[in-house]
């Protein structure tokens, strides 16, 4: 009797401690989830904070006096004269109308560095196209120089102004007040390829490169993945060869992606002599990489089709192939599509193997075919992120936002497809 009571006593006394432990354990779990979600939040906040300025361009609108004397140009149709003429002079003159006190060599140089280095060639192109505009004054909009652009975008942060002289800072402040320097949506970002100057660089080339590469990947890995899954689920005999293939697929799914780059380098470029840095080779490598993912998810989709469907089709005399192609595959298609879209999203974000097959070259032109040199979005981000210029870092984060937008919409499409089409048996 006393023994039992004392035991209950012991239990009661320890309960408090045990419940405390229970609460602590629960807290650890919440803390872990908090850490994971906080990292996700910080990651996104950091990238948006760094990159939102990448979607903004800084322009300077000037009334440019196209005086023939200042440019040493009498006849814009004369090729020799055009190539010798000084097209930065009218821009400097236009800026000097705002700052009459800026005379002399160093002031002129600093004025010239207010606009991007492509500004003089814009004047030249205008005159080449419209020779009659010589000796008139035209209102032109130029991209601001990178340093000016960074200074304007980060007006509240003094650490971004170090690359402008104090005099230039004063000019910029004045021009911003007058509305001559203005910021607007960065359409350059979506209409050009890479450039040595951040203001002139865009991600269109990389987006087109990614698109071409993904088309090759999709064209190869989707049909092949589904065919392989059908074979393994429906036709493969239970033998060693089948086992070997299955083990292979499972292991390939976990091989580091950079190894696929080595494969592409040695086989596609080394053995078959294919050119470097083209979307075809990139697409092939990524196709081999995503194949296991697609096979595994397609097999799961085929497995989830209930046997009653098969039996019913067989019962009315369909051949095995007819059962599979007419009944099983259409029913498994939503699952297969979902898996393939997720696999493609992975391939879209992949960088490492593409570095090895040379898709890291500096490419200005937007690629125009499967065999033209190209780069892809993640590689472009990598290239820009490795640059020390603030303007490129902004572009890299802007590129990341575009890449993430693509990936999130692909995943959303996959989820939508699954919700919309998947049937529960």
């Amino acid at each position, binding site marked *: 009797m006393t023994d039992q009571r004392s035991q209950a006593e012991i239990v009661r006394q320890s309960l408090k401690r045990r419940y405390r432990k229970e609460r602590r354990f629960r807290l650890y779990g919440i803390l872990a989830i908090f850490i994971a979600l906080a990292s996700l939040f910080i990651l996104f906040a950091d990238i948006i904070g760094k990159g939102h300025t990448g979607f903004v361009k800084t322009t300077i609108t000037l009334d440019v006096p196209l005086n023939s004397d200042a440019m040493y140009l009498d006849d814009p149709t004369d090729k020799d004269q055009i190539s010798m003429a000084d097209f930065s002079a009218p821009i400097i003159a236009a800026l000097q109308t705002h700052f009459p006190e800026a005379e002399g060599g160093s002031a002129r140089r600093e004025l010239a560095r207010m606009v991007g280095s492509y500004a003089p060639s814009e004047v030249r192109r205008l005159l080449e196209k419209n020779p009659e505009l010589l000796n008139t004054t035209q209102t032109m909009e130029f991209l601001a120089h990178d340093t000016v652009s960074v200074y304007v975008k980060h007006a509240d942060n003094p650490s971004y102004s170090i690359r402008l002289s104090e005099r230039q800072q004063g000019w910029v402040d004045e021009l911003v007040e007058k509305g001559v320097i203005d910021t607007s949506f960065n359409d350059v970002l979506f209409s050009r390829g890479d450039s040595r100057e951040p203001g002139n660089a865009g991600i269109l080339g990389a987006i087109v490169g990614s698109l071409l590469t993904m088309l090759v990947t999709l064209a190869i890995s989707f049909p092949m993945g589904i065919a392989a899954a059908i074979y393994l689920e429906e036709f493969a005999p239970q033998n060693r060869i089948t086992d070997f293939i299955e083990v292979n697929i499972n292991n390939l799914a976990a091989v580091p992606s*950079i190894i696929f780059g080595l494969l592409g380098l040695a086989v596609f470029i080394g053995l078959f002599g294919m050119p470097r840095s083209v979307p075809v080779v990139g697409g092939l490598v990524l196709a081999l990489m995503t194949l296991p993912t697609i096979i595994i998810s397609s097999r799961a989709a085929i497995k989830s089709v209930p046997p009653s469907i098969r039996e019913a089709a067989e019962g009315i005399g369909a051949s095995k192939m007819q059962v599979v192609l007419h009944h099983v595959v259409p029913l498994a298609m939503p699952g297969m599509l979902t898996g393939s879209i997720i696999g493609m999203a992975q391939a879209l974000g992949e960088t490492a193997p593409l*570095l090895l097959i040379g898709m890291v070259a500096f490419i200005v032109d937007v690629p125009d075919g499967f065999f033209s040199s190209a780069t892809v979005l993640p590689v472009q981000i990598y290239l820009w992120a490795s640059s020390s210029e603030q303007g490129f870092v902004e572009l890299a984060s802007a590129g990341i936002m575009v890449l993430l937008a693509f990936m999130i919409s692909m995943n959303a499409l996959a989820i939508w497809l699954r919700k919309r089409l998947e049937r529960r048996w």
Partner: protein
Amino acid sequence: MQTANLLPLVLVLAVVAYGLAFMRSRAVAAPLGGIRNLKALPFYYAARAALWSAIPALVVLAAWAGFEGKVIQGIVIASLPQDVWPESAGQASLILSQISNVAAGKLNPDFVPEHIAGAAGLLETLREQSRTFKAILVLLIAVLGAAFAWSRVAPHINARESVERTLRRIFFVCAAVAVLTTVGIVFSVIFETVRFFGRVPITEFLFGTSWSPQTALRADQVGSDGAFGMIPLFTGTLLISAIALLVAVPVGLLSAIYLSEYATKRVRATVKPLMEMLAGVPTVVYGFFAALTVAPFIRDLAEMIGLEASSQSALAAGLVMGVMIIPFVSSLSDDVINAVPQTLRDGSLALGATQSETMKNVIFPAALPGIIGGILLAASRAIGETMIVVMAAGLAANLTANPLDSVTTVTVQIATLLVGDQEFDSAKTLSAFALGMMLFVVTLLLNVIALKIVRKYREQYD
């Protein structure tokens, strides 16, 4: 004609063959009293014609396109006068690029030796001939295949069986591509690795403690002592992976436990997809985050408390990599925890244990093998991860265990050694393939062991 133009042409021919065979099968069936008297539906006769037309032609086209470049190069090199034959692969590629530049009109033929200019002419003619022959051969095969299938449209032939047989074979080939890929990986690393060990002794590669492939560029230093020791790379990889696992394992495991045992359905439904988003973020984004945000932050923090930290510290790369593999650990642990039978849980709770006691003393031990398997898979992920370390870890091969120092990893070295133009026979380039081989072997072993453990564990409760 270019391969790119030939491909759609072959497909058009296949469609034409389909249409013709379809019509013929109906025509054949008409006098017999309708398609009921055929052994197969007209669709199968037509499909057979399309397959017969397209498949042999495509196989020939792929083989030709794959090897024409190499064969033409071989012929061009062989046509050069004997005294200028290239002695090494590097020299050969130099001569070839010169020849193709002349042929493409990028280089004035007057500026190069006469034999190069001659070879350029030969290259042009060979390419022209190859293009013509390829087009003729491929189209001929496509037409012949279609014609043969067309002639065999007869009521007594069961086209369905032959179409289904062919499809089965195609499916098998697709499944076998996985094996071919593995074979391709093994061969692409093994040849270069063997060549590498011909120059640098294997013992030095495995046990050397200094890694500086750049010095070996100079001819008199090829294979110089200690330039290709992989120990510092290996320890660097281990250091960063260990930091990553130190972050990912507790966080991933505890969140999986909370989500599967404590969380309400609604919390689970919102938190799980959010955590999976972490797995979907491209690695280049993590690399950007590690290099431009975390690494400077850690350096400043270390400076504040009076420590010296590199701006490319192992800690930054490791922490971010840890965040990246949290979802792997948590979803794999979630699977194994859910696989533990409910009876074990109920039994423990009925005896008066609290939920956390049940978790710690009953479920966790039962799930342990599966969890270890999951951790091994995560470790193999961490070892093979490239972009985070390329962007956030350094290039200097320091042999150190200090997480604030800069270390380099196997994947970083592979990427830096092989990016850009490289000659295929310098020890520097070959060493990247040897490193790739090590990486492949190590991750493969980890995966095989992990999958075995997980499978064995699953069988236990099935």
